[in-house]
């Protein structure tokens, strides 16, 4: 009597049962991601909206004063939202050009040996935990900013000195953080441009720079936009690295002001917040979540639209 084993020659009934079970298990695994996204969205909405209704959407989103522990608490996060937008925008403005140009350097104009050393180094930087960037920011950027602050505002009577923790420090740390990601993804995109495009352009007499900026970069556009999306995602979601370099007061996002981002607001106060304060912190989390979803969806749509146009 042959043993009933899991083998090609086992009985048909056994095979079908195992097959159905396997398929069901794999399908469950695949839907884990769907389930996760749905529950995250659900929980963010559930925890974030009570405060919106108790205090009033307008007052939270457009209020300017953040005094959650005062006798008459006020929960306006307008400046916090503005800071996140302005800070991320500036970090992208600084980081993306440097990143893309460095990618061009690595993929096109660098001598082979130099590129062979620098590329792995950039990939290494991409994996460094973000708190290390924060550590260096505190110890190197903040003193520099403080010196700059002292010299610029030496005669001002109204400026609040922050010891160097201000918007510029945070923006610089964010820009440095997104550099490795932007460089890596842009470089892959530029390398992936078909060789015949480049040869054709050079053959009709274009210079190397003309070829790069008028032929290769537009061809690598979707990859570069992906790099920008990843950079934006990283910059707007960064909490730990900038929490100690951005100061901790809620202010208009001017360069030398001590500011608070949506993310640092959550990180600094979640540890000790209670009741209504805590609920408003979850609302801040919800605002952040909505922002990120909007950015992801918009930029993905732009990417798809571009791909369709090119194809």
């Amino acid at each position, binding site marked *: 009597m042959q043993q009933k084993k899991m083998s090609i020659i086992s009985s048909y009934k056994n095979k079908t049962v195992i097959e159905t079970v396997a398929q069901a298990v794999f399908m469950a695994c695949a*839907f884990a991601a769907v389930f996760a996204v749905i529950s995250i969205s659900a929980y963010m909405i559930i925890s974030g909206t009570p405060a919106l209704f108790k205090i009033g959407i307008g007052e939270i989103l457009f209020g300017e004063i953040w005094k959650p522990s005062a006798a008459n608490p006020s929960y306006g996060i307008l400046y916090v939202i503005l800071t996140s937008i302005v800070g991320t925008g500036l970090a992208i403005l600084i980081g993306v050009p440097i990143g893309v140009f460095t990618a061009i350097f690595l993929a096109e104009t660098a001598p082979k040996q130099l590129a062979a050393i620098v590329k792995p180094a950039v990939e290494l930087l991409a994996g460094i935990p973000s708190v290390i960037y924060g550590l260096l920011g505190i110890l190197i950027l903040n003193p520099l900013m403080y010196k700059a602050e002292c010299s610029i505002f030496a005669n001002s009577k109204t400026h609040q000195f922050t010891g160097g923790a201000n918007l510029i420090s945070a923006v610089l740390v964010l820009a440095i953080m997104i550099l490795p990601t932007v*460089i890596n993804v842009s470089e892959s995109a530029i390398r992936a441009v078909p060789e015949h495009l480049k040869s054709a352009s050079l053959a009709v007499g274009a210079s190397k720079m003309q070829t790069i900026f008028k032929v290769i970069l537009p061809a690598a556009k979707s990859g570069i936009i992906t790099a920008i999306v990843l950079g934006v995602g990283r910059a707007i979601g960064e909490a730990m690295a900038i929490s100690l370099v951005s100061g901790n007061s809620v202010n208009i996002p001017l360069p030398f002001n001590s500011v608070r981002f949506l993310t640092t607001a959550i990180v600094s106060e979640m540890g000790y917040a209670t009741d209504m304060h805590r609920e408003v912190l979850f609302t801040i989390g919800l605002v952040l979540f909505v922002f990120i979803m909007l950015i992801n969806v918009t930029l993905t749509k732009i990417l798809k639209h571009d791909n369709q146009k090119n194809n």
Partner: protein
Amino acid sequence: MNERQSIIVKRKKARPSDMVLHILINISAAIAIMLLVGIVGYVFYRGSGVISKAFLTTVPSTIKGTFGIAGNILNTLYMIILTLLIATPIGVGAAIYLNEYARPGRMVNVIEFTTETLAGIPSIIFGLFGMIFLGTALKFGYSILTGALTLTLMVLPLITRNTQEALKTVPDTYRSGALGIGATKWYMIRTIMLPSAMPGILTGIILSIGRIVGESAALLFTSGSGYLLPQTGKAFLEKIMQPGGTLTIQLYLCMSKAQYDEAFGIALVLLVIVLIINFLTKFLVWRLNVRK
């Protein structure tokens, strides 16, 4: 002879805009390279003085006034192992489903869209979700388990994507051959697809380890900041349900307490771990290509 020389001269004359762009490119590259060297160099410079056998093998003691990160290293190890134990089966299973079982259509689009979305959510939102859902609703509290489950969500897209890529490179002839001699689908996957895709799966796992080691915002509100070593055998298992701070969390705490020397020591340890992970990934990719 003269005409040939003049053509050559004309060809080499650079356009002014070209020179400006060239200079910009070189400046950007120089900035990036200097930052790179500066960051790694400074961490090594300030951290190497702090590293010692005591630093790496003891826990902080207020009585003796010493500092050590052995507890944090153990917590990080626990976090890595626990997260991978949960995330790898789910991630590989999802990739197998997407590649082998599912028919292209609405459902696959939805699954792929949500996996991409999951990859784009910042870590602090995962931290909040972990705190509310796992910590409070499921009553796991501050524990390594909560942290590991939160990190699973973050690491899932990485493993799924890498496994999918690896499965795609298995030639169709393998599949047809196996099914042709009568193997069932699950048998074929188990004995042919998974072993062939193993390098890709391993790459995904190593990339995930890199992500887990570097994660801080998601763990701050989910796994807390304990740092003691378990004293008994049973305690090693109980540790999973207790709060535990990983290396990055300890780094953040040292930073906020202005203990910068210790912070640099931890930073150096983290940097070395990232270096090792990078080398491992490169080595795996090289082995993959060599096999082909």
